[in-house]
C-alpha cells in the first residue's frame, strides 16, 4: 500500500466517525470535552456554529453520529452524543453576546427564503451575518416550520424552538409570517437577488384502499394530524387507534395518540420490525409507553358501518429477497386479519409538492416531481433559485436540512458576488496540534472510561401520558453528563507517526490495548489486512500506512478500534508517535478560498 497521506483533510476527518457521519460535520468530540470541563456555553457555541439548533437537535436529532460512534464498536453502546448536545443547551449561560455581530452596513443584496424551517433559517443566519438582507416567508404564525408543526411537544417544547429561532430572526432577519407564497413567478417579479426554497415535504402519502372515502371522518393523514395537535386544533382522539406506517412520524403519531386519550394504540407496518424506517430509540420509546408494533401486515381495507370506521383488515406477508437483494412482500396465505379500531392515522411517508412553482419559469422538475438541482451547489435550473432541506432532495431530517442550508448559503453568496459556484467554493481548513504537555501528560483526558451508557432520566410515565405538552425526558443532570461525556474516546485526537524517529522497538505494538499497530512487510491492502496482529476486517475503516523504516518494514495501523488512549505515544521512547488534535473548520458563507 502507498503511505497514507495524512495531510489530506478527509483522512483524519473519517477517523472522527461521528463528525464524518454528521451532515453538518459538527466537531463532536470537541464539544463533548467542553461539557466534561463544565464549559457548557462554549460547547453550545461550537454546536451553534455547525448545526444552528443545538437545543432542538439535542432532543430530536436523527443522530447519524451515534450508529457511527467508535465506542459502539468496542463497547455495548455508543456515546449518547445527541443528549449531550442537550446538556450544552440546558446548562449554558446567556450566549447572546457570543453570537456573531450583524454588520450594520448591508451589502445591498436582498435574499428571499420561502419557508421558515431549519434550512431557510440556516440560510438566513449565515447570510445576515455577512451583510445580506434576508426576508423569510412562512404561512405559520411563528418560525420553525416542520420542527414546530410535526414534532410533538412532549419531545420538543415550544420554548426551545422559540429560543433558537429567535437567535436568528431577532437579529436582522426580516420575517413575513402568515404569508402564503402562492406563486414563484410573482416572487421572482419582486426582483430578489436570489431565492431560497425551503418548503419541506409538506404532503403526507395516503392509503388508497377500499373504505378510505367512506370512513374518511375517522382516518387522518399523520403529518396533518400532528400539525393540528401541535397547534391545539385537535385535543382528543378515540379510544382505539391504529397507526399505519413504520417511520418516525408513525412513532410520533402513536405516542401523541396515547396522550390524547388513545388507550389502545397500536402500530402496524408492512415491513419486518427490523427494517422499519423509524430509529431504534424511537421504536423503544413507543413500546415503553405500552404501544405494540405489529409487522408484516399489509392493509387491505378500511371496514365501516354507516360511515363510521370499524377497523382495518390486513393481509399477512413475508419478505423475500431476489439475487440483487431487492425485497418483495409475498402473501403467506393466512386468513385476512381484522383489527378493530375507531380511528386510523396514516403515516406511510411524505412527498414533495410544489403547486406554487409555475412550470414555465425556468425551474425544471424531473419525472418524480423533484426540482433538477446541482447536488453540490443546490442551484436549480433557474440560476437565482436555490433549494434546500426536504424540498431539495426529498424528506430526510433536520440536520440534513441545516447542512444543505449552509451549502445553499455558500452558493447564494458566491452567486451574488458573480463567482463560480464550484471553482470558487471554499474548502475546509484542517489543523493538527500536538496535545503533549509532559511525560505521560496530555491536554485531553486520555484515560478511557469503562462506564456504560447512561439512560436519560424521564418524568413519571403515568403523569407524562396525561399531558401532551409535558416534556417526557428530563435530560442528564451534570453528574450524569460528566460520566457520559467521559465515555467519548476523543477520536479527534489523532495518532501521528513520524517514520524518521522510529527505532522499531515494538513498545507501541506491545502496549496497544486493541492491537491496532503492526510492523510488517508492506503489501497489497486486502492481503495486508489479513496478516496484521489483529486482522483488520472492517473495510470501511482506513489503514494508516507509513514506510521509510530502517528494517524496510511498514508501520500499519488499523484505525477501526483505536481507543485514542495515547498509550502508543506514552510508550514511544523517541516521540515517533504523537497525539495531535485534528480540527476541521467547515466553511460557511463568506469564507474566502485560500490562495495557494
Amino acid at each position, binding site marked *: 500500500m502507498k503511505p497514507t497521506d495524512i495531510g489530506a483533510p478527509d483522512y483524519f476527518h473519517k477517523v472522527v466517525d461521528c463528525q464524518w457521519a454528521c451532515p453538518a460535520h459538527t466537531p463532536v468530540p470537541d464539544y463533548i470535552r467542553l461539557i466534561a470541563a463544565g464549559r457548557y456555553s462554549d460547547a453550545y457555541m461550537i454546536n451553534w456554529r455547525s448545526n444552528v439548533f443545538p437545543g432542538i437537535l439535542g432532543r430530536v436529532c436523527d443522530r447519524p453520529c451515534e450508529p457511527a460512534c467508535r465506542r459502539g*464498536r*468496542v*463497547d455495548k453502546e455508543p456515546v449518547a452524543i445527541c443528549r449531550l448536545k442537550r446538556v450544552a443547551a440546558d446548562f449554558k449561560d446567556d450566549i447572546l453576546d457570543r453570537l456573531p455581530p450583524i454588520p450594520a452596513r448591508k451589502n445591498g443584496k436582498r435574499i428571499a427564503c420561502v419557508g421558515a424551517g431549519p434550512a431557510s433559517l440556516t440560510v438566513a443566519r449565515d447570510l445576515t451575518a455577512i451583510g445580506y438582507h434576508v426576508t423569510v416567508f412562512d404561512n405559520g404564525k411563528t418560525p420553525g416550520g416542520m420542527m414546530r408543526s410535526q414534532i410533538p411537544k412532549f419531545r420538543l417544547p415550544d420554548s426551545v424552538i422559540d429560543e433558537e429561532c429567535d437567535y436568528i430572526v431577532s437579529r436582522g432577519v426580516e420575517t413575513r409570517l402568515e404569508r402564503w407564497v402562492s406563486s414563484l413567478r410573482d416572487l421572482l417579479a419582486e426582483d430578489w437577488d436570489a431565492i431560497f426554497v425551503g418548503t419541506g415535504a409538506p404532503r403526507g402519502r395516503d392509503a388508497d384502499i377500499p373504505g378510505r372515502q367512506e370512513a374518511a371522518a375517522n382516518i387522518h393523514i399523520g403529518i396533518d394530524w400532528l400539525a393540528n395537535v401541535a397547534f391545539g386544533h385537535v385535543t382528543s382522539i378515540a379510544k382505539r387507534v391504529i397507526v399505519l406506517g413504520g417511520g418516525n412520524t408513525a412513532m410520533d403519531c402513536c405516542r401523541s395518540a396515547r396522550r390524547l386519550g388513545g388507550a389502545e394504540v397500536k402500530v402496524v407496518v408492512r415491513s419486518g420490525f427490523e427494517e422499519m424506517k423509524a430509529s431504534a430509540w424511537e421504536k423503544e420509546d413507543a413500546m415503553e409507553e405500552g404501544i405494540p408494533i405489529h409487522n408484516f401486515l399489509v392493509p387491505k381495507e378500511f371496514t365501516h358501518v354507516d360511515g363510521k370506521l370499524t377497523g382495518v383488515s390486513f393481509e399477512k406477508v413475508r419478505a423475500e429477497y431476489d439475487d440483487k437483494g431487492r425485497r418483495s412482500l409475498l402473501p403467506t396465505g393466512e386468513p385476512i386479519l381484522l383489527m378493530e379500531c375507531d380511528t386510523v392515522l396514516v403515516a406511510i411517508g411524505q412527498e414533495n409538492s410544489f403547486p406554487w412553482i409555475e412550470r414555465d419559469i425556468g425551474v425544471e422538475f424531473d419525472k418524480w416531481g423533484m426540482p433538477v438541482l446541482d447536488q453540490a451547489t443546490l442551484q436549480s435550473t433557474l440560476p437565482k433559485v436555490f433549494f434546500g432541506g426536504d424540498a431539495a432532495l426529498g424528506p430526510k431530517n433536520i440536520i440534513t436540512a441545516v447542512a444543505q442550508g449552509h451549502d445553499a448559503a455558500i452558493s447564494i453568496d458566491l452567486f451574488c458576488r458573480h463567482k463560480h459556484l464550484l471553482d470558487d467554493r471554499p474548502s475546509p481548513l484542517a489543523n493538527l496540534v500536538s496535545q503533549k504537555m*509532559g*511525560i*505521560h*501528560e496530555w491536554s485531553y483526558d*486520555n*484515560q*478511557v472510561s*469503562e462506564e456504560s451508557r447512561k439512560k436519560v432520566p424521564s418524568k413519571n410515565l403515568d403523569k407524562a401520558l396525561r399531558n401532551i405538552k409535558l416534556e417526557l425526558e428530563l435530560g442528564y443532570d451534570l453528574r450524569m453528563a460528566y460520566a457520559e461525556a467521559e465515555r467519548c474516546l476523543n477520536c479527534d485526537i489523532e495518532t501521528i507517526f513520524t517514520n524518521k524517529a522510529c*527505532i*522499531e*522497538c*515494538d*513498545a507501541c*505494538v*506491545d*502496549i496497544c*490495548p*486493541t*492491537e491496532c499497530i503492526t510492523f510488517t512487510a508492506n503489501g497489497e491492502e486486502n492481503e495486508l489486512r489479513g496478516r496484521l496482529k*489483529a*486482522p483488520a*476486517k472492517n473495510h470501511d475503516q482506513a489503514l494508516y500506512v507509513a514506510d521509510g523504516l*530502517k*528494517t524496510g518494514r511498514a508501520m500499519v495501523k488499523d484505525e*477501526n*478500534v483505536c*481507543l485514542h*488512549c495515547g*498509550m502508543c505515544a*506514552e*510508550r*514511544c*521512547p*523517541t516521540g515517533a508517535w504523537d497525539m495531535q488534535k485534528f480540527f476541521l473548520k467547515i466553511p460557511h458563507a463568506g469564507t474566502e478560498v485560500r490562495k495557494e
Partner: protein
Amino acid sequence: MTYLAKPKLFRPDTPKNALGYTRRDYEGAISTLCAGCGHDSISAAIVQACFDLDVEPHRVAKLSGIGCSSKTPDYFLGNSHGFNSVHGRMPSVLTGAALANRDLIYLGVSGDGDSASIGIGQFAHAMRRGVNMTYIVENNGVYGLTKGQFSATADKGSKNKRGVVNSDSPIDLVALALQLGASYVARSFSGDKEQLIPLIKGALRHRGPSFIDVVSPCVTFNNHAGSTKSYDYVREHNDAVNRLDVILPRNEISTSYAPGSLRRIVQHDGSVLHLRKLAKDYDPTDRIGAMNHLQERHALGEVVTGLLYVDSSADDMHRHLNTVEKPLNQLGDAYLCPGNKALEGLNASLR
C-alpha cells in the same frame, strides 16, 4: 507522572485460546520501565507464548532476582505464582520450588547483572543440575538501574553512552549454558518477536534446563553508536542459524518445505520443533559444533541467534535424584509419616 492501566475495552473479534482466555488475560500490571525498553517486548512475547500454548496461569511460577529485568514478572502473567528473590539468587529459589512441586511450569527471568555478575555461581549450578525450567536472561549489557555502567556481558571494545570503551572480556552466557549442560539453548532479540515467541514456546514445552539469552536494548543507557547491544547493531549483525515453529500435538501440520531445508525434532511431550535452516550445515543437536560456531561468529562481531542446541531426550533433576512423582504438598500425612513400624524397619535395614 501517572501510568494509566490499559483500558478493559476489547475489539469485538478478540481471539480466545482453548481455555477461553484472551491474550489480555495473560498480561500483568502496567510496566514502569523506560518507554521503549526491550524488556517490555520480551514480556509481550511471554504473554503471546503462554496464550498460544493454552497455559493455565495458575500452573506457572515466575521467579526473578533484582534489576530492571527482574521487575518484569510483575508485567506479565498477573494470575500466576511469583517470587522476587534476593539479587542473583533466583536459580536456587527456583531449584527449591521445583523440587517441592514438579507439577508447575518454572519460568526464571533474570538479567545480565543478576545472572552474569552477582548470580553467576547460582546460574552455573542450576544449569549443571538440570533443573526443569525456562531461564530467560534479558541481556542489555549495562546496569540500567544504577545509571548505565558496563555489565559483565558487555563486549570488549564497545562504548558506553559517554564514549568510555569497555576493556573487560565479556561473559557469554550461551556458551556457559552449553558447556554446563543446558539441554535447550537459544539466543534471540527483543526486537524480533517472530523469532522470540516460538523460542519461548519451545522452551516452555522442553523438559530439562532451557536457557534463552535475549539481547534486549536499553533505550536509556545502551542504544547508541558504539554499543553492541543497540537496536541498530543487533539488527545489522543478527546471524540467525534457523527459524523455529513449535507444532503442538493437536495441531495439523500443513506447511511443506523443500527437502533438506527442514529439521523436525520431537520433544518428550509430543510437541514438534520445526527448524528451518538458515545457516548452511548448522546442526542444532551438535553441542560441540554449536559452541564452535558461536565462537567463530562472535569473533567476527556477529550475534548468533536461533535455537542453537536442543537435546530432546534430556533428563532433568528429578530423574537424576529419583525424587517422588507427587508434589510434596500433595503427599499427605500418612505418606510422609509412615509410622513407628516403618521407622523400625528402616533402622533395622541399616544395622
